[in-house]
């Protein structure tokens, strides 16, 4: 079984040396967020992830959630209820939540580190607090004072869970097709009726009440997405003392059998004249739900990263221990019966591609987390707006690239393990199965690419793009004269230049033909992701180089940053060249073949 060790040294490097937190100075969320708190949160977060959650990962996969037909209840695998009690009891569900409702109010970029650790340790488990947090965010932003007081404190404490109910049998990506109805009653509440499917955490025995956020149509609402409203439907109606009372008309009617994340309950939910409460304005439900979707998309990216990080660790451990054959350059460990496979060039390639992704993505995730914190909580409107441009641009990129690579790295880990990875004992194949869904849910990666070219590129009249290119250009200019850094700066400069050219190509073609944008979108997103990663690796290299020159800290750690940056720039970033070619090929080769040719 893989033994996950949280990458605390890398987190410390990123928080204490890499991230520029000066823009956050003076924010209320930063008052408590001093380096010693980071340290304590990371250390304790690592501990509960490693000792409490990770040991349940294989058990959860083996047993899975159990649906009890008689009463529509769902039983979690052994140990999950207690682990959740420890997790919520220790206050982790309220890490970033508003202190007014019992949260700790710590910055979201600290929450992202926690999210990475729990997803690396046990992705199925992580889904539950993740969904509650999403529902919390929607209610916190769109709920009435009364709703917030009633529901948020127990969601923050983890006593109650939260879910999001969008999908129906006939509508997934296209939410305009929603049929669930909500009819107003005299007392201001609504009667909600309909079927929702693929509802993660829809029913389980770790919480005493579940707060469902449900998209539905009111009578006479306009057709399509402009006629959708958002409703809060508690599993148990909450009495005047704030306690769960009468059972509401919502029931789980079945669980999906899935390839992975087997202890994440994927429920079919039946709403039969359930009592619901409008959240936000009527017919504005989709906008409210998108608040949740955007945050969820970032976190989905972090799920991919977390599982990649755990799979990479397993691969390194195996490559060091597995003795087989000799190095091509002659025995490297002559005292052993054979060399460990880590000496072989192709094994190293696989490990380095994994490492370069994991550490680069961790940096990009946290860097974006800082921008998100600024967007959500900075007092200055202009700062919020500028930070929001970066977040808007990076959200589809992080979602798609991190999860595609999460899958890739899990598969590389299996490849390093060879046959040992394909059998179940090593736990590596579970990563391959568990991570796969991240490319699909929260909007498939194809949809993310369309979001990037269709909305983000053109949105905010080009400000989104400026939020990326301007800092990159300034950074390149700042370090252009330093020869020692040229091997990191020059590739970034070239990639950013190519990305700008390609952006112009995509932009000009799509105004005449939207299919051009569609055909280019996935390659373009990957190209953007690689360039953003190059920016993160160049920044890490500059910090590491500076620390080495000053003789500070652990030389081996900084040297490894420089070596990995070099690997990324020379072995991974050049993919942008072929991606550029593919984009330039245009929609023709994709769209010309008739449907019958397939």
């Amino acid at each position, binding site marked *: 079984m893989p033994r996950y060790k949280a990458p605390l040294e890398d987190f410390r490097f990123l928080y204490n040396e890499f991230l520029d937190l000066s823009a956050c100075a003076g924010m209320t969320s930063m008052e*408590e967020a*001093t380096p010693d708190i980071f340290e304590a949160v990371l250390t304790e977060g690592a501990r509960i992830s490693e000792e409490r959650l990770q040991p349940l990962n294989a058990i959860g996969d083996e047993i899975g959630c159990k649906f009890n037909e008689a009463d529509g209840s769902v039983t979690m695998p052994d140990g999950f209820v207690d682990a959740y009690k420890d997790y919520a009891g220790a206050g982790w569900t309220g890490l970033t939540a508003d202190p007014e409702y019992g949260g700790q109010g710590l910055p979201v970029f600290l929450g992202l580190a926690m999210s990475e650790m729990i997803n690396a340790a046990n992705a199925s488990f992580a889904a539950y607090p993740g969904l509650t947090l999403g529902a919390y965010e929607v209610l916190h932003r769109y709920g009435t004072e009364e709703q917030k007081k009633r529901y948020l404190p127990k969601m923050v404490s983890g006593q109650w869970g939260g879910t999001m109910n969008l999908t129906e049998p006939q509508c997934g990506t296209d939410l305009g097709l929603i049929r669930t109805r909500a009819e107003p009653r005299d007392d201001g509440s609504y009667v909600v009726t309909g079927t929702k499917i693929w509802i993660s955490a829809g029913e389980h025995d770790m919480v005493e009440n579940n707060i469902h956020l449900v998209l539905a149509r009111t009578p006479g609402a306009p057709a399509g997405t402009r006629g959708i409203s958002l409703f809060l439907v508690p599993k148990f109606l909450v009495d005047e003392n704030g306690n769960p009372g009468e059972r509401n008309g919502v029931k789980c009617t079945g669980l999906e059998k899935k390839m992975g994340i087997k202890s994440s309950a994927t429920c079919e939910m039946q709403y039969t004249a359930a009592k619901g409460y409008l959240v936000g304005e009527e017919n504005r439900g989709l906008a409210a739900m998108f608040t949740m979707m955007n945050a969820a998309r970032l976190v989905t990216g972090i799920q991919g990263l977390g599982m990649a990080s755990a799979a990479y660790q397993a691969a390194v451990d195996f490559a060091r221990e597995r003795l087989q054959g000799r190095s091509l350059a002659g025995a490297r460990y002559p005292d052993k019966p054979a060399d460990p496979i880590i000496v072989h060039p192709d094994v190293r390639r696989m490990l380095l591609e994994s490492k370069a992704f994991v550490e680069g993505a961790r940096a990009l995730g946290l860097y974006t987390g800082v921008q998100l914190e600024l967007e959500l909580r900075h007092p200055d409107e202009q700062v919020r707006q500028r930070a929001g441009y970066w977040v808007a641009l990076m959200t589809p990129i992080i979602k798609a690239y991190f999860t595609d690579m999460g899958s890739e790295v899990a598969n590389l880990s299996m490849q390093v393990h060879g046959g040992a990875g394909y059998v179940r004992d090593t736990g590596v194949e579970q990563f391959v199965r568990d991570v796969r869904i991240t490319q699909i849910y929260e909007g498939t990666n194809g949809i993310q690419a369309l979001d990037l070219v269709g909305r983000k590129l053109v949105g905010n009249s080009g400000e989104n793009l400026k939020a990326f290119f301007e800092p990159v250009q300034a950074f390149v200019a700042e370090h252009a004269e330093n020869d020692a850094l040229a091997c990191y700066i020059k590739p970034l400069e070239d990639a950013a230049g190519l990305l700008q050219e390609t952006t112009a190509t995509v932009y000009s073609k799509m105004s005449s033909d939207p299919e051009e944008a569609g055909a280019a979108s996935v390659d373009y997103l990957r190209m953007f992701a690689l360039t953003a990663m190059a920016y993160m690796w160049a920044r890490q290299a500059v910090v590491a180089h500076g620390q080495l020159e000053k003789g500070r800290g652990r030389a081996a750690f900084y040297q490894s940053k420089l070596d990995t940056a070099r690997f990324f720039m020379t072995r991974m970033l050049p993919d942008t060249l072929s991606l550029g070619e593919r984009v330039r090929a245009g929609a023709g080769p994709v769209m010309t073949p008739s449907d019958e040719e397939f």
Partner: protein
Amino acid sequence: MKILVTLKRVVDYNVRVRVKSDGSGVETDGVKMSINPFDEIALEEALRIKERGDAEEVVVASIGAADVQQQLRTGLAMGADRALHVETESAPQPLTAARILLKLVEREEPGIVFLGKQAIDDDCNQTGQMLAALWDRPQATFASKVELSDGKASVTREVDAGLETIQVDLPAVLTSDLRLNEPRFVKLPEIMKAKRKPLDIIALDELGIEDAVDHQISDFQPPPKRAGGKILESAGELVDELKNKGLL
């Protein structure tokens, strides 16, 4: 009653310890450091005693450079009420540590001083016993169960022959064994609160203690690599083999 718990900062038990290349010590740079696990168990027990209503205050103490404050903060986050940091750049040996602790005992007048039975770095297993002797109070070491009543502690000890239960009058020195309890997970709100709990820094000379070095450490070496084993055909061969090696 007040309970004083000692916390030593050690290399985390999960870390594979490496000897520094110059043999001057073990590598701690960039290595995860934690509260000595036995000390953590001692603190957990002290907190449970307090939660049962048998103690009013739990004070944690550590001796060392500024970075031991990290472990003290963790102790505060677990639930200790305040912390004492005796500041010194050197790593005191057990006897010096016991002398320092005696000074803290004189200041604080605790009913119980709770230590880990040993620290996992040097495995000395001496400080508690030495402190009891210097303080001239009873000791109950290797505790796997502790019950308090009428100013006495009834302590079940893990000894070579099995378990033995003894009674000691308080104040006394107790040291914890591994099976005494399972320490709690630190709660996030407690981490935040720990920042505001008092942590007093005490200079060594303020206690009138000279940082006496009672042992001179000349060299650290990793354990020698194990030579390969040998499979013998019969008991007779084994006897011959042992005789040849002069072991029999």
